[in-house]
């Protein structure tokens, strides 16, 4: 009998299909998870991993197919339903209320909570759970004073507090330092030993090998392969995930930097909500014909650095110079006129106007110039010709230029932004996570374009969370941690270990001073 229960999967999803307008997100996907196991769900962004898991926790409903929890057919309509079955998910974006305490966040929204909660009991239970799993957090700390790693622990505590024994983690290490990732691994191992199980969404090969027992690879909404982790190599996984061999090198001219183009001089930006400043005395120089990469775990001030340069964020102190001219706290328009192009993080929210056409989006910098306008009037014929030219030059796949940008794929939205920013670039190109979530082809196009700008003598600032990308594209890498630059290294004179240490906040790890 005991033997028997071991054989029943705790989660079984059968022939799940889910459509979104214009996209088949999941196509006949089946999945099994056994108790005490970690299943890695591997795939590129857009492969359908998160969609599949969102159906398991009731955020979406499958068009067809069935879900069994511990062998029983489950009808999951909401996250509350899935929680009642012991299934809990930690999303990429944490669902925490910033100005409430850890304890308040953990019990927030629980139905069985009495009208006046007994906070001492709650606190005691949290302390007990955090000891048991090694999840150190202070129940009375306020969320926005916590680091990203600590916030993630709160999310895990939230689930175990509510009795979840099937945990779904959506790219949990994307926001963690290598050290924090190892801690997470220990926590999960401890939970598995108690018979809990976990599904792990990721697109990083090493994590699959480090964390999981089984791996299921998705591509374009379909299962490509399911196998035991023992015995697969990262190369196998990469090939399964992408469906073809990946190129690992790019053509480029020799490194031959010119004069200083952009100079960031002791810039500090205060965070009005938190105790730690966004930027803490940051200094940086970018020369013409050079790519500076910014490495670091997301949320350590990289985006704020680019926003301070582009005039979107107010510098509390320090100076920013472009071509030697003081541009500190200029308006975004003045910075654009000084020749700075910006490919922002979160392209859908910041980079394009989804409800406007591809053509209009391409023209959003140049509409001010005689290339598109005559005086204050926008010449439609000029705009159309201009947009057609860019669509062709950057191989943007769109039915026509009148299609709303939001109907394009992520890669083509990014190409639209890339085309606009590169076309209008006047010397400085700032790119923030430009290849995030793109398929291999689009990623290559983005990287090649950045290098092309460098070869043309422009100064390029590339923010990325992937060290491989930085090592492949950048000439120098600056590492940011908690709003500070931990060090700047020549790509050829550093290695992943050193950069990883700096990302975790270690300084002075130079081998030869």
């Amino acid at each position, binding site marked *: 009998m005991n033997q028997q229960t071991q054989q029943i999967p705790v989660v079984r999803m059968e022939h799940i299909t889910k459509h979104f*307008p214009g996209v088949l997100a999941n196509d006949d996907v089946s999945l099994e998870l056994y108790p005490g196991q970690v299943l890695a769900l591997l795939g590129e962004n857009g492969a359908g991993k998160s969609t599949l898991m969102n159906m398991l926790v009731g955020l979406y409903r499958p068009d067809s197919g069935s879900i069994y929890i511990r062998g029983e057919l489950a009808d999951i309509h909401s996250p509350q339903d899935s929680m009642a079955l012991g299934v809990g998910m930690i999303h990429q974006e944490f669902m925490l209320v910033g100005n409430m305490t850890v304890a308040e966040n953990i019990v927030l929204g629980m139905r069985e909570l009495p009208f006046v909660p007994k906070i001492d009991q709650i606190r005691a239970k949290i302390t007990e759970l955090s000891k048991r799993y090694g999840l150190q957090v202070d129940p009375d700390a306020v969320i926005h004073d916590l680091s990203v790693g600590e916030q993630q622990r709160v999310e895990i505590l939230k689930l175990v507090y509510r009795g979840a024994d099937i945990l779904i983690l959506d790219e949990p290490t994307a926001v963690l330092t290598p050290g924090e990732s190892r801690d997470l691994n220990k926590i999960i191992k401890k939970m598995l030993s108690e018979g809990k199980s976990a599904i792990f969404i990721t697109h990083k090969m090493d994590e699959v090998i480090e964390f999981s027992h089984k791996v299921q690879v998705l591509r374009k909404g379909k299962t490509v392969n399911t196998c035991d982790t023992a015995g697969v190599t990262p190369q196998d996984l990469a090939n399964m995930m992408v469906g073809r061999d990946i190129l690992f090198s790019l053509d480029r001219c020799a490194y031959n930097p010119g004069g200083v183009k952009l100079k960031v001089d002791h810039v500090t930006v205060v965070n009005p909500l938190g105790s730690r400043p966004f930027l803490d005395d940051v200094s940086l120089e970018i020369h013409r014909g050079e790519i500076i990469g910014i490495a670091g775990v997301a949320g350590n001030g990289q985006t704020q650095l680019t926003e301070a340069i582009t005039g979107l964020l107010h510098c509390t102190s320090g100076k920013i110079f472009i071509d030697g001219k003081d541009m500190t706290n200029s308006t975004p328009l003045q910075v*654009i006129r000084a020749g700075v192009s910006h490919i922002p993080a979160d392209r859908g929210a910041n980079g394009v106007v989804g409800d406007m056409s591809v053509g209009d989006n391409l023209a*959003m910098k140049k509409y001010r110039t005689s290339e598109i306008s005559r005086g204050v009037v926008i010449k439609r014929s000029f705009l159309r010709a201009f947009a057609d030219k860019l669509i062709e030059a950057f191989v943007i796949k769109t039915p026509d230029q009148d299609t709303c940008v939001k109907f394009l794929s992520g890669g083509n939205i990014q190409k639209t932004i890339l085309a606009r920013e590169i076309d209008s670039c006047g010397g400085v190109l700032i790119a923030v996570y430009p290849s995030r979530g793109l398929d291999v082809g689009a990623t290559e196009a983005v990287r090649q374009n950045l290098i092309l700008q460098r070869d043309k003598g422009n100064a390029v600032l590339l923010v990325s969370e992937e060290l491989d990308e930085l090592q492949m594209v950048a000439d120098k890498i600056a590492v940011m941690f908690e709003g500070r630059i931990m060090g700047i290294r020549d790509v050829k004179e550093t290695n992943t270990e050193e950069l990883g240490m700096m990302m975790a906040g270690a300084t002075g790890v130079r081998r030869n001073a």
Partner: protein
Amino acid sequence: MRIVVEKRDNKSKSAAVLIPLASFAISLILGAMVLLASRSNPLQAYSAMLNGAFGNARRFQYTIVESIPLLMCGLGVGVAFRLKFWNIGAEGQYVWGAIGITWVMQFWKFLPVPMLLPIGLLVGMTLGAVWAGVPGYLKAQWSVDETLTTLMLNYVAIGLAEYLYISAWKAPLGNMGTPEFPREAWLPPVWGKIHSGLYIALAFVVLLWFLLYKTRWGFELNMIGKNPRAARYQGVSIKRNIVLAMLLSGAICGLAGSMNTAAIAHRLTKGVDGGYGFTGIIIAWMAGLNPFASILVAIVMAALTTGADALQIAMKLPESMGEVLQGLVLIPLLAGSIFVEHKLKVIKKEAV
């Protein structure tokens, strides 16, 4: 079987025309049910309304006159709505326009009489713009919620107007209302009851269409309305444009007030807060913020008002029945607008 609402892949042109027509048909049926419940013949009632609104030249003129301030207010709030700035203060801005022109007519004696009308219109426009600019500035500078400020400022403007026509600026004779404007300073008629405000309103339709669809500024407003963050990243100043759009919005509503005062009442008196500013909100919405479509919608709304008056006389129905029928037209139209961007999808087999 399950029915779900799903976003359309692309906006359908035919749906944009057919859905409002279908909604209008539904509202006629709903109205008929209400009329039947109050023991009236719906066909008779509808033909009485139609007749009341367009039945002869005088009635037609009256409907057009009614539609002019509606159109202007619809155009005005539409400018702000493009930015998703919810200016529901058109009523107050309209009232300020009326106050402005009255002030000029009554107290700017140093002006030659032929100058009173143009200067009066300009002052009314300016006051409307200022009244709208204040919430615009508050929003741009300190993110003060505009729905509250614009709404509350309506009552300040209406209260002030009451104080003026009941007490401070009251004409020596009569118990309320300011002295009548000099006859030479009235807005001249063009055809029967229809006054030359019609030309001004139509000029604004063309002007706004050009401004919003053809110029760089219109392009910027479109960007801000659809994604303010992306607009900011492209170097568009959101604060500046909110204030500018509100100034224009208020100016148009203010001009509506001064025009209507100079054309109809010829003085500031009771009834200055006729609700044009509020109906303007509905007009802007139903016209999809399109200036040309606003003309048609304004005429329909005006016809509902003038037609309802006829309903009262011809059918002996209470005045409020007209308002009920107006409301019944709006609900299906506004509810139906969701299907222009969404569609219903029927899923045959229940998925578990």
